[in-house]
């Protein structure tokens, strides 16, 4: 089970925090500090796993993290989670984050895709949380249809827009995302067509 997801920057400033197990407020802050302390002193060329902290759950507890640019994405999980699985989940999460921020940005900034910044995570904190809810629910990794999440993000943006009276068409965003051509990102995201096919799992 995932116990917590922490995103903080190189200086240990929290950017997104989600706990799936209850800890008192001061304990949460302590966990963030200690995790940052553990993670930040590791080089980039060592492995992405850390074990045996004392804060969450004692020895049955590991940290799986990735460091991108200025941000650390840290998952605190118990021993039942697959290390590499979580590592890829972080990748998926980052993909969705970029996708989300990208969607927001294409409307406001023409082609200024590079301007997605660390702070945008906070600007759209609520949206990031919604995406997270779809990928990790109550500490469980959900194998989901990627299209579905993309659809969710779209829906969410559409609602915001209709509320805000904006009528900008996200067409450019869609085409930009389609052409992103990210080698480590699922290729089969099909934004124009969000029909979810009925799976052919035969009954048993």
């Amino acid at each position, binding site marked *: 089970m995932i116990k917590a997801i922490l995103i903080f920057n190189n200086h240990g400033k929290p950017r997104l925090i989600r706990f799936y197990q209850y800890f008192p407020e001061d304990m949460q802050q302590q966990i963030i500090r200690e995790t940052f302390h553990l993670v930040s002193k590791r080089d980039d060329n060592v492995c992405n796993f850390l074990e045996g902290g004392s804060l969450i759950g004692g020895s049955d507890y590991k940290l799986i993290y990735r460091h991108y640019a200025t941000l650390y994405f840290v998952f605190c999980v118990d021993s039942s989670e697959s290390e590499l699985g979580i590592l890829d989940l972080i990748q998926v999460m980052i993909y969705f984050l970029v996708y989300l921020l990208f969607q927001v940005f294409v409307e406001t900034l023409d082609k200024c895709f590079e301007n997605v*910044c660390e702070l945008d995570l906070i600007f759209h904190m609520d949206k990031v949380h919604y995406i997270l809810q779809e990928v990790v629910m109550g500490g469980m990794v959900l194998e989901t249809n990627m299209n579905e999440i993309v659809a969710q993000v779209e829906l969410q943006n559409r609602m915001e827009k209709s509320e805000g009276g904006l009528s900008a068409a996200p067409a450019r965003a869609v085409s930009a995302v389609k052409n992103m051509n990210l080698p480590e990102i699922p290729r089969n995201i099909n934004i124009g067509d969000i029909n979810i096919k009925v799976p052919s799992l035969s009954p048993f």
Partner: protein
Amino acid sequence: MSDVVEKTLTALPSLLLSVDSQPGSAKLSTSSKLGSLIRNITELTSKHEEEKLIQRELSSIKDQVSSPNTTMRQMKELMVRAIYCEMLGYDSSFTYIHAIKLAQQGSVLEKRVGYLAVSLFLNEHHELLLLLVNTVLKDLQSTNLIEVCMALTVVSQIFPKDMIPAILPLVEEKLNHPKEIIRRKAVLALYKFHLIAPNQVQHIHNKFRKALCDKDPGVMGASLHIYLHLIQENPEGYKDLTTSFVTILKQVVGGKLPMDFNYHSVPAPWIQIQLLQILSLLGKNDPGTSEIMHEILEESLRRAEMNHNITYAILYECVKCIYTIHPKSDLLEKAAKCIGNFVLSSKINLKYLGLKALTYVVQQDPKLALQHQMTIIECLEHPDLIIKRETLEILFRITNAQNVTVIVEKMLTFLSTSEDDHTTIDLVGKVAELAKKYAPDNEWFIQTMNAVFSLGGETMQPDITNSFLKLLSEGFDSVEEDRKLKVFAVNSYVSLLEGEPEKLPQRFLQVISWVLGEFSHLQQDVGAETVVCLLDKLLHMKNSTSETKTWVLMAMTKVCEGAACAPLVQSVCETYSSSLDTVLRQRAQELQHLSRDPALRARVLPPVCTREPLEVDSSLSFLDEFVSEALAAGAAPYKPSHQRQEELAQTKAVSYEPYQLTLPISTTAHTHTPSLLSISSSLSEGSADLSHKGGSSSLKLEGVKRVWGRGGYEAAQVETPSPPQEGGDPSISHTPPLTSEDTESKQQEQQLASSMFLGLDHSSVTLMGKGDSTPSWLKRKERGQTPLNDAQTFTDPQELTDPSPLHVVSPQFPQSPVIANGTSDTEAALALACLDTNRSSTNQLEDRGLSLYLPAELSGLICSEISVLCSSESLELSACHVHKLRSLEMIVFISNSSDNAVQQIQVQLHSEQLEVSCASESQMEEVKGHSVVVRQYSLRVRKPSVHVELIGTLFHPETPQNVQFTYRLPLSSFIRPLTLSTEEYGTMWLSFSNDTKQNLTLVHSENEGPLRATLNVLTEDLHLHVVEIIGMEAIVACRLLQDQPCLMHCRVHGDALAVWLRSPVPELPDCLIYHCQRALQGH
């Protein structure tokens, strides 16, 4: 990660520096208050300024949320700001109620923020959640999908346990929803319910099965979480689903899922991982189930081509599964190859997982470690500490007597560089364990332990020091060897103290002072005054804690002898007898008195050579007189603390002590695990322990041949010859030619490898916990733990299978009148078993002639002596009691010695503790001249006490006065054996709350062990049933008429039998203990 994303994110720092110059950020930041807040914070430099800014922000939020003019839309924006402040660690609890309000009243988007804020702010136990229940109920019934989704999400995140019934039907209903996202969320919500309140979702387990067969893979994947959890708890219950899981995995692996679930063209990798985890749980120790999954595992291994991170994740899970389930050789081979790929991979994450897999596997297959020895050696020098630690973990598992020195050396080197507390504690424990088990000689052992103590510092587990001191004090059987070890320890400590004792941790100083106090006299070269001087130095150190000082003072008390140290001791006493610490003061006083009075000293602390093993009376029988006097004076009887607490609580407490009979006590001997079965009365806990020690020293005196160290060393020499070559050779022959420098370093590594993997050859595998050739140390410890030598025969399996002679119905007595009378076999058994002991009374009974009047159906049963109750004129009343299996019958004989018949005689019996019922209807009897009338009463215990008393009255029409009499009988007459199995015993034991613990004296007999002999006495006298005897322990059951069970657990503890009784009847255990004591006194 992709180039684009990389580029995106690397552009961030520059953005941070020039926020204003970027049009996008500038626009955004100004567009919202959150934006400006964030921007302001990033511009701040100190924590203090940030605090001030946030406080200001919070107070402005506070003003706005409480203002009635704030619209829901503004509220939404405020809530996001509050979430941000909360994330930074500032308290914004005043917004919690508004978050709930937002979730309640807002439109969809506002609701969403409200729910999010609630799930981030509140926890399951927060009282405000009650206010949310109605909102959730409403949203669950909504026709808007998004609202239902939000409600289900919040339910699975935080929901109070006691509110589950309110929404359970609605959530359950959602399992049939046409939309898969709703079904999926409903499954997860139910999973959450199952976690926090399993009994409330008991009835919907069938629906989980339906979810498992859902046509949407997402829903099926969600239900796997539930099954993983359920199977973890109870693998037996779900074996029937194995084929289903295998089929699902087959379809997933075969690509039958929609393409949408592919990730990097791997079909549903997370579902695969989870299925593999489930399969390994199901197939563990179950050849049949494992058989079913072999095929699909092989397919998974084949399909997962090494091309992406996520396939490695699946492979790793596959390998783990293959090694967990019942093994199949060709699969194992493939898995081993896979592990090899991991270990040899250049990607560090894979290497780490490879090492982890090796650790997991190495106990089953030590050859695998041999294959990868060179990689392991490389990893030892790896810059990443995590990799190093994992490598040491592997080495720890392959340690044996031959490679222990090399491996421990590596561990100590690592320890000296490690900064992480957790790692240090863990590793120190491991080194201590290895040193204890495999130490090749004295010097090495002491030196290693010194390193452990100085590196472990204060964080070390306390049992490491304790067991070390115990080892030292128990020593060896060989006097010479024993002496050498102690002298070496003393020497090394003296030199340590002469060095820089300031640098040593407190724990180590305590160990040093104890050892010096106890054994420094063995070393003639070091005088007492030197030792006292060194110890005194410790007292003056600034960082010595008062605990350490106490140890030092105690050591001084033991050492100070002769005039040379008198002045120093005197000054120490003066300093500390006025200390504020009472313990220190006490020790200083002791030191003062003992150092002044040599005669007293000789008595209290006799020289070691003359020390006799202490005889400890663990039952504290010398206090019996005192206790009985106190009781006579009206003192309340002693109740053990747990009983007192229970009475205080006045509730039927749940027992938290599981009764595990299968726990093998003697095998856990080498570690100090607190055994659940260590049942000695809390009163005599300390003394029982001492008696145990006494027992082990008596073992020593009997001269059990056991040589530690030397034996292990010799064994190593004998076993050494071939393995190193076998271990090292292949790698040498396969290495390609290298430059001279390279070869040198390579050779060094190989040398290291050959010493490290020594003895790992499959023929002489001596892994931890396995193998018979464990060095003497471990064995010695185990022996040391068994307190009594002769009692060891009980562990002999043959002895155990011997039919217990306690109450066997011998087939020679089929013509017994009892059976003829139609009573059951068991009753006959009871009668026969006790016939011997009661023979004398039977004789007596015949003498009086009254026994002839015994009712026919009672003849042949155990019968007490017939005693005269009272007499009045010509009438005489006598009585006895007869043990029937299901009741106790009291027989009253009314005999008339005169010639005339006496009419209207009435006998009434009553008792506070007993229920008396009369067999005959009529109250009145007529007794003819020179005849005897028999009345039969059956007795039942109403309230147990040690002795029960019947008060009877004889109504005699011819005499004006009624004659009163009393009849007293022991509670033991009401005890019957209770036949039950060990399992039943276990469950019953847990359900009983009244208990008593006591130590009883053992009965010694020539032909049997003390446990058996004692049990024989008890079963004979008290009609108990021995359920099982396990080694030094026995469980016994009996019942008090009618059907009130009492269970007894006995354990030989030193020279005493520790018994623990439990019963649902409060008074019963105490009464029974009394009778046990009585029975044993007679022998």
